[in-house]
């Protein structure tokens, strides 16, 4: 299989987009980008462009879904029809339903759900352009949107993938790298608690490669975490200064 496509890593150890093996794609994050949402965030990671919005806590509809002891978190991951090469039908695919579930489960451990019994909170993620690693970028943005909405949280959740390309373990795979014969390990982390809240994998990895990939992804998460915090500070610390 691997002979079919061109080399994804050159002799100098650089990837197709010129990155080093353990280098993230350029990341741009903004919070509070949507006026109607209670919290929102926008992330660009390489060619990925993703919007996340939070509505709530609010009364849950249908009402029978409400829980007496905690808030219900709902999550929808959705890709725009124009986000990929061939038009994607706007109807939710099985992949999107699965990703909505794992993104929800990645965010849930970070939120003090018990502070808001009988309510619901909706997280909407729209992938406007996809280039590999959208679930991770979605989690990074969604967690910021929750923070922007003022939801009490144990920590921010940050996500990043590592994987294997041309038999080498690398960080933050693009779509081309992901589709090649290798492996992809998306991982979400609450850095302060050293807690992994999302872990998936496809491809083939030895136990040693897996350990390496997990460690690399953890490092990547910690780097993005710094950006996440800076983004929040930029937004809220400067607002405070203006008020004075």
């Amino acid at each position: 299989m691997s002979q079919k496509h061109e080399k994804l890593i050159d002799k100098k150890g650089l990837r197709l987009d010129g990155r080093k093996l353990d280098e993230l794609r350029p990341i741009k994050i903004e919070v509070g980008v949507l006026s109607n949402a209670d919290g929102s965030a926008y992330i660009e990671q390489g060619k990925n462009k993703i919007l996340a919005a939070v509505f709530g806590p609010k009364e849950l509809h249908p009402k029978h879904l409400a829980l007496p002891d905690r808030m219900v978190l709902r999550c929808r991951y959705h890709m725009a029809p124009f986000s990929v090469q061939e038009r994607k039908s706007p109807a939710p695919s099985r992949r999107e339903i699965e990703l909505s579930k794992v993104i929800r489960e990645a965010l849930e451990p970070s939120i003090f759900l018990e502070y808001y019994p009988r309510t619901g909170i909706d997280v909407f993620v729209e992938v406007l352009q996809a280039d590999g690693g959208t679930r991770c970028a979605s989690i990074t943005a969604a967690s910021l949107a929750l923070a922007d909405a003022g939801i009490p949280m144990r920590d921010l959740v940050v996500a990043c993938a590592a994987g294997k390309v041309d038999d080498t373990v690398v960080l933050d795979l693009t779509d081309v790298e992901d589709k090649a014969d290798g492996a992809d390990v998306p991982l979400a982390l609450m850095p302060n608690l050293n807690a992994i809240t999302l872990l998936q994998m496809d491809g083939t990895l030895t136990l040693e490669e897996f350990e390496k990939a997990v460690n690399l992804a953890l490092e990547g998460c910690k780097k993005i975490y710094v950006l996440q915090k800076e983004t929040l500070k930029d937004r809220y610390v400067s607002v405070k200064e203006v008020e004075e």
Partner: protein
Amino acid sequence: MSSVITRVKQKQIAQLIAKGKRLDGRGLTDYRETKVEQGIIERAEGSARVLLGKTEVMVGTKIETGEPFTDTPNEGVLTVNAELVPLASSTFEPGPPDENSIELARIVDRGIRESKVIDLEKLCIEPGKKVFVVFVDVYVLNHDGNLIDASALAALAALINTKMPNYEVEEGEVKVKPGYTPLPVRRHPITVTFAKINDKLVVDPWLEEEQIMDCRLSMAIDDDGNICAIQKGGSGYFTPKQVLEAAEIAKEKAEELRKKLGW
């Protein structure tokens, strides 16, 4: 999660696990009794039933001809679907597949696809036009926990049991000839699922353990002891150390089970 377990029992399960024991007498990394039967549905091209303790899953495979995907014109198509049949549990409702059955199907699919169980290129009839489509339908008949491992095992057993129709192509038409050839199954991935309870990992959680677990982690291990698919589920978390520990145990358990089944 509508069925209720008493607080007393929850506490008991958690306390026992802290001591390295389980309510049903198993050790933390023991599987329940595992039975695999193959070829139980004659109308299906392949079939199997797996019993994992009281959990029961049946898988039937059907083979039809169809069009390949545009990005893989030389490959047959593999489709996995899972039904949480209402008779299997009071928590399963009739209706279109919910996120749980979709997730189950996609975990089983990933285990089979990523470890390259079937040589999909051998299922090509006419490149870009006609290929064999293998339908793997997972039917959960009794839910007593760990549907993932039972379904993955049953799906593999059914694929091993699957016979492909012989055929010839006449003027673009596929004509089925008498006789069958076995589906070319090359690999034997085994999926091992852990539940995290009281900060400890237990293998093959049964229903009551699943109801009190923080989260679960499933790993598919191929014939060479490599990991080929992972899925974390549930709204808890694992530490990096627990993940690596789970990978080691999964490798051992998969080897053990594969040896026992003679695959």
